[in-house]
């Protein structure tokens, strides 16, 4: 195969377009028992907050038709221990690193960004804005154009000019194109589409919600058509913005679908839970499929579904 498989996000080069999805690969250590992390385009780390977080009580998970719900609650060690332990380890592996951050206030995003601005070896920062804003009645940042923009602007102001910012958007909004527009205006260099959709399962034996927090984020193949739609709509409105696509990608064909819709790279999430080797398998399948469809450059396949028929 002679496919040029590289891709770029806001000027940052990646040798292939397959990334992990935040929260589905920890900081890479566990997956490194299955394959070298250098095989991935990038490792996107689990969203890190300022302080250590216990996360939610269990049950945190429920399997659903073609998917699963999760309510982990961003369990993690906090940014300081993360920078002390996880980043040096990832750098030693030679992995390309995208750090995902999450905050509970606009200022949290500023603080986290300041801590990251001089850390060597990071390719980009993903700003997870699907978190409750404690300053706004727990409303999720990503669900409102103003609060989404405020979080991204805080990150942009504090991170310096060099590190690309990727804003991760929630599909649980009326108009994702409007949210995309407001975070682009606020300084996002790229978008990650899509986060999970809010869902709920009730156990019909106990007759209570299955998850301790009642609701959880729906992921897996069940949400893939939502991801394809969101990516396609945003791509149609913003032809140049880099998009990291994700949402229920389980094989090369699924990844290709998101690429055709407009994704410059693909993150693998829930599929990793069922098979730790998923990302590598999907990477190989997508490469074969791009070649089989006659592409010499992966980048030519991006947004290819936007051409008019007969083109």
């Amino acid at each position, binding site marked *: 195969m002679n496919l040029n498989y590289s891709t770029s996000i806001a000027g940052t080069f990646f040798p292939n377009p397959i990334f992990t999805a935040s929260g589905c690969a920890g900081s890479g250590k566990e997956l490194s028992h299955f394959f070298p992390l250098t095989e991935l385009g990038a490792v996107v780390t689990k969203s890190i907050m300022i302080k250590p977080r*216990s996360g939610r009580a269990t*049950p*945190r*998970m429920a399997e659903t038709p073609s998917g699963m719900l999760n309510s982990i609650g961003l369990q993690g060690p*906090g940014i300081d221990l993360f920078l002390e332990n996880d980043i040096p380890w990832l750098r030693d592996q030679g992995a390309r690193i995208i750090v995902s951050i999450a905050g509970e206030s606009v200022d949290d995003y500023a603080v986290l960004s300041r801590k990251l601005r001089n850390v060597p070896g990071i390719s980009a920062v993903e700003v997870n804005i699907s978190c409750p804003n404690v300053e706004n009645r727990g409303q999720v940042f990503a669900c409102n154009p103003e609060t989404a923009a405020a979080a991204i602007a805080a990150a942009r102001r504090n991170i310096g000019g060099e590190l690309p910012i990727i804003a991760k958007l929630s599909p649980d909004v009326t108009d994702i194109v409007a949210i995309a527009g407001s975070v682009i205006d606020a300084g996002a260099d790229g978008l990650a589409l899509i986060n999970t959709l809010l869902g709920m399962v009730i156990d019909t034996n106990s007759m209570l919600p299955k998850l301790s927090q009642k609701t959880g984020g729906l992921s897996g193949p069940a949400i893939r058509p939502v991801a394809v739609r969101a990516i396609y709509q945003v791509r149609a409105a913003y032809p140049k913005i880099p998009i990291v696509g994700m949402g229920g990608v389980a094989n090369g064909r699924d990844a290709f679908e998101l690429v055709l819709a407009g994704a410059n790279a693909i993150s693998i999430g829930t599929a990793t839970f069922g*098979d*730790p080797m998923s990302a590598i398998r999907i990477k190989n399948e997508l490469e074969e499929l791009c070649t089989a469809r006659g592409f010499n450059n992966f980048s030519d396949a991006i947004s290819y579904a936007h051409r008019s028929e007969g083109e």
Partner: protein
Amino acid sequence: MVLRRAFAIYRASHRSDGVGLLELVVAPHGSGSKWLAAQNPGAFVDLIAPLGTAFGIPTEPINALLVGGGYGSAPLFALAEVLKARGCRVDMVLGASVAGKIYAPLEGKRSVNSLTITTEDGSAGVTGRVSDVLPELIKEHETDVIYSCGPMAMLEAITKISQSHEILHQCSVEESMACGIGVCMTCVLPVAGDDGIIRMTRTCIEGPVMDGNKVLWSRSREIPEGVWGR
């Protein structure tokens, strides 16, 4: 089904011709175990194993009490054989709601010094729960270590007894898991580390066998007080 399933290993051995053999005991209750039980003999099944921690084996002959709840008793029989081979005294208690849910294969019974059965409806053995008979058995057999496997409520009840008798308690816990390899963070329990800090700990790779006396058992749907990062 998008997720893999986690099972306790019933037994690992070598066949006479040297081929490795891994045995699982599966009760076809959920969609995953039903799928597995429906596979034809000779079918290839994708497997990642072994994962996580195993029961710790003592270097000296001790008195061990093995406690199993329902089908959770399966991995205890191989453990009984290993302990027996190390010269340990091995007593076993198996409990379930009804007699039909007791798993006790004949060959397993041979490797224990005594076997006590409890059922909640009295359809076999002592009427009641395993925790009802434990204090007396611990005294009678001068138990040094309890090994247990079964539902979480049972493990919690055993921990209360092991703590009041000041004996070790190694338990194999059961939380629902999405990945089994340590990335999804769904299967956590509050567990005190060697540094005394209580962390939400992954039972897939830092368990399933844990020091029961260090688990902060809680069935409330909230993070208990004192947990790091609460």
